[in-house]
């Protein structure tokens, strides 16, 4: 059954990689939804592998996770996209071919970096850390290399998901309340970002983040 967790992690990694290459926003939102779903499903898989002691708390948290990250957030992003009237990330700051290469190198970098760290024994699998780091780096790459504000929100969401994956992968116990708090924060954060994108569309008639550069140092005489 160890294979199930490996499959989950690998598909998470694949979603991340595809995110870096896709230009259609709708497709990116779907990928992020899949990532959320996989992330929610991981604790259940781990509990099944560990020995079936499935107490209700872990189950409830997994359900909420899947519901929020798998369904509610993507729906909200889709509505924001429709209102923003933006279909595709036209010409990103870094071309798609180049961003593909960059994503691959980031994944290689995170695998090298994961090797350096020594682990305690109760890790889900050796793959967890590298996948999480590659997700983080790709998330950051999306924020830096994409023009549209909505893509930046998606990049930010991928970044959050991979951090949560790292937490889940490392079997960390920091109390259900904190877990719930983090989930709530991420949900409200993306919700506020969606409203912000809508307001920016209303005000600027475009949502290119790189054109938002009015606030800068006026060169003094």
């Amino acid at each position, binding site marked *: 059954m160890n294979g199930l967790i490996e499959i989950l992690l690998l598909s998470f990694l694949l979603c991340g990689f595809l995110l870096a290459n896709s230009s259609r926003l709708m497709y990116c939102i779907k990928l992020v939804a899949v990532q959320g779903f996989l992330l929610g499903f991981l604790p259940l898989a781990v509990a099944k592998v560990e020995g079936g002691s499935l107490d209700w708390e872990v189950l409830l948290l997994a359900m909420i996770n899947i519901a929020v990250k798998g369904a509610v957030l993507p729906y909200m992003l889709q509505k924001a996209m429709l209102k923003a009237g933006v279909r595709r990330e036209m010409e990103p700051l870094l071309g798609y071919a180049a961003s593909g290469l960059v994503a691959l190198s980031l994944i290689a970098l995170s695998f090298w970096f994961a090797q350096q*760290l*020594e682990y*305690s024994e109760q890790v889900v699998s050796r793959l967890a850390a590298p996948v999480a780091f590659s997700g*983080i780096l790709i998330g*950051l790459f999306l*924020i830096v290399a994409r023009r549209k*504000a909505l893509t*930046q929100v998606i990049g*930010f969401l991928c*970044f*959050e998901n991979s*951090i949560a994956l*790292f*937490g889940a992968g*490392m079997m*960390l*116990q*920091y*109390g259900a*309340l*904190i877990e719930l*708090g*983090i989930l*709530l*924060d991420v949900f*409200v*954060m993306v919700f*506020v*970002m969606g409203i*912000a994108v809508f*307001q*920016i569309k209303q*005000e*600027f008639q475009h949502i290119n*983040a790189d054109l*938002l*550069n*009015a*606030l*800068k*140092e*006026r060169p*003094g*005489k």
Partner: protein
Amino acid sequence: MPLLLNILIPAVFAGIIFFLGKRISAQQSRHLFVLCALLNFVSALLSQPLFALTQLGSWLFLDKFSAPILLLSASLFVWVSIYAGGWLQALDDMSRRGAERDSGFRDPRLFPEHVFLSCTLLFLAAMNLAISSANLGLFWVAIEATTLVSAPLLCFQRSKAALEAMWKYLLICSLGIALALLGLFFLAIAEPTQSGLNLFALMEHSEALNLQWGKAAFILILAGYGTKMGLAPFHTWLPDAYSATPGLVSALLSGALLNCAFLGIFRFTQIMPAALLPSCRQMLLALGFLSLLTAAFFVVRQQNYKRLLGYSSIEHMGILAIILACSLSNADMQRVLLWHIIGHSLLKVALFLLAGNIFLAYGTRSVTAVKGMFESMRWNAFLFLLCLLMLCGSPPSPLFVSELLLVFELGPWLGAALLFLLFMVAAGMLHAGMRMCMGTSPRQESMRKAALLAERLFPMPAVAAFLALSFGVSLIFLLIRTYTIF
């Protein structure tokens, strides 16, 4: 028990104002807002360690360091709430007059006033939660909540710049805080006994921490909360955010929120094992001096006085980091840390409220466009210059005492570098301040009426400045009596 009240009162009032907003008049919601601020101040006073139980289970507690900060942010909130009354009234008149003049007039406010008030109260609740949380995870959730709630405050006044400022603030701060979350996970891994993120447990097992994960965790926490606090390479959102928001919001942000972010780093240094302390000290010193350097260079020939105050916040957060680095080796520097925080917050609130007055009178934020403030708004100009002087660390201000003790702690070479950078910042800020105050003011009629209105809003910053002055003078007497270091 009062600890829980601290968080519940603002939250409940926020709910009341949010839901009853449409039914009760704007005036009543403002009164409720001020009432909640006073109640919160009273509960903060009650929850001081010397009065009541300071601990509530394993979640909330107030120790010698965070109690004054709680009281400070509560008192700041009282000033800001009273100032907000006058300011929102001014906005109301402006929008009503605008609406009468021409129908196509867009309301200067992005969303209704009561939403703004409830967001501010939620912001207060989140801040109180952050200050009094004993669990690092809970602290992270509270800080994340402050970012979420303060984002709409930034863009309350409808303008392109406000939206852009809000977007940058939102994205960069949430990124930073996410890094802090990763840092927390690293800490959880480094901590062998899986005892959750409770502060007291972590303090006991601090020696057993895994060094490699611990150092990585510290770096991420430094980056994460450093972004929220405005330390050097992560400071980029701060000047842009401050230059586009109303004086009220930036006063809250810089007066109270920066201190909470600093509290995060402070808590983390408390649980660091002895082996990691030297490297932590070096990193804090490096970031501190880098912030001072950026502030020094960006303050020279600064064209916008709100950004000027933003960079002075960056400078003072840099100084806080340096004092923290020194307090790792010598414990009684924590008192100096507290003095610096209190002094800086009081002065920064006074200055931002004054900046708001100046914007109200002159309508522009450029240093070159504002001229002859001594002539047009005499008392505001005098106070503005006095607060700038005190912010640069001249004697009557508490910052002079903390900088003096810091220089004596740092030793000759670092002390000389610190003094030089402080000198550069003082030069840049005073140049801008004096350029605005001197000369003859433009003679328009509208400006004269606005200047009179600004003069009426003078008492609030005056109270804050007076408190800072008296705090400084008492510190100086303390310094003369106790310190015989030379």
